[in-house]
């Protein structure tokens, strides 16, 4: 009863490492919209408190270095369609679901966080290639501060999301097909250019 009216506030802040992966040979635009930048999750837990968890800065801190390392070239864009950009595709990440659990019993030791991002891949023309849901789970020991434990669990979950995106993106069937098309298109364009330039050289 004493906790009625209490609130817990967490601002998830962390630096995230760049992934140790080979860059995919495509130029990608990335939409970081206001919703992602300013994402705040609020939930009232009965008999505990109102939780406010701000994830906006961490979203960008996690995704920006990730995409920079995953693709040959990345560029921020405002939206699709985008004409004459020289881009192969556009990614639009959103945070679609967030759940967390703070143990109430003495025997439960871990705070848990689960989150799901939606990674949407578009052609520069605006045609959607795929919506890919990516989830991450993190847990952290409940020590002296519940807020700290929630923050640590959220960071573990976000690292998991980053790990999945960087290692599994190219393996998604639609993405794999799309990448194949782009590479084929590039190869065809090069060959076509060579064929066109060939006679000119010989002449």
């Amino acid at each position: 009863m004493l906790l009625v009216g209490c609130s817990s506030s967490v601002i998830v802040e962390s630096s995230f490492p760049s992934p140790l992966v080979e860059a995919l040979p495509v130029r990608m635009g990335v939409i970081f919209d206001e919703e992602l930048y300013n994402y705040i999750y609020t939930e009232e837990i009965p008999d505990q408190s109102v939780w406010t968890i701000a994830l906006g800065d961490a979203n960008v801190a996690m995704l920006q270095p990730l995409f920079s390392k995953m693709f040959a070239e990345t560029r921020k864009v405002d939206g699709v369609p985008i004409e004459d950009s020289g881009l192969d595709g556009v990614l639009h990440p959103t945070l679609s679901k967030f759940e967390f659990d703070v143990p109430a019993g003495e025997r439960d030791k871990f705070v848990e966080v689960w989150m799901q991002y939606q990674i949407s891949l578009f052609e520069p023309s605006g045609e959607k290639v795929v919506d890919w849901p990516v989830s991450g789970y993190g847990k952290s020991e409940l020590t002296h501060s519940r807020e700290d434990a929630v923050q640590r669990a959220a960071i573990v979950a976000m690292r998991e999301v980053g790990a999945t995106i960087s290692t599994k993106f190219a393996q998604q069937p639609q993405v794999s097909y799309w990448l194949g098309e782009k590479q084929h298109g590039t190869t065809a364009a090069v060959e076509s250019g060579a064929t066109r330039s060939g006679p000119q050289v010989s002449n």
Partner: protein
Amino acid sequence: MERRQPWNQAPPEAAPKSATSVSHSHSVSGKTAGIWLAAAVGLPVLAACGVTSRIEPYKQTDAVIAAGENVVILARKQHANHEAEEDFVQCISDSLAQGKNKIEVHATKDFEDKMYPWFEPSTAPLSTDDLTALLERPGVRDQVAVTGVRFVVWLDGSTDRVASGGGITCAAGVGGAGCMGLAWWEDDSRYDISVWDIKHLESAGTINGDFKGRSVMPAVIIPIPFIARPQAHACKDLSEQLKQFLTSPQGYGAGPDPNLG
């Protein structure tokens, strides 16, 4: 070659100073009787209090750490219901890096960051075959070389309260306050260590440790806790064992007598 150590009984740690000082500060009538009563209850209780330990090291290669090579301590995080505690991982890291025969230890977080995303819970190699496949990925072997890590030490397990019982009743009145009774609890620190040799891409062996600690708190007027700390014992003993493991070739320590059996 496997070496088994029998269960060892370590004495309980002394009660916290604050509790001791409190026990000396109270003053009631019948003080002598209280002391005798406390002794009568406390001595058998003390006999049941302490830490029992068992360590089973198994080394299957003669690999030892060389100058300029590091180890990294990583917690296994695949389990839903337990995970080696962060402060325990830190304790093992610190203990290896200090004292006699100290070993160069690469910071866990820094290693996980440098190798990201390959040592996250969902991507970390579960076997040396997985490790071999991981090191064949572009850039991974070079990055491991940058860290200088030769041995990956996987830590799995946790410390849990496995039993508790008894009870203490306290009462207060005009003439004073006091407690009477006995409470006890038992913690189990069970940790399994797997050591991987990155240079030879093989498992170097394992060390399994089980430390059980029973704490008791008799109360005669005031509660006096005798707290066993199995996790602290586990950190100290496993670190020492790990130091031997990493610095001595196969068959380190007193193994079984080859003439027997």
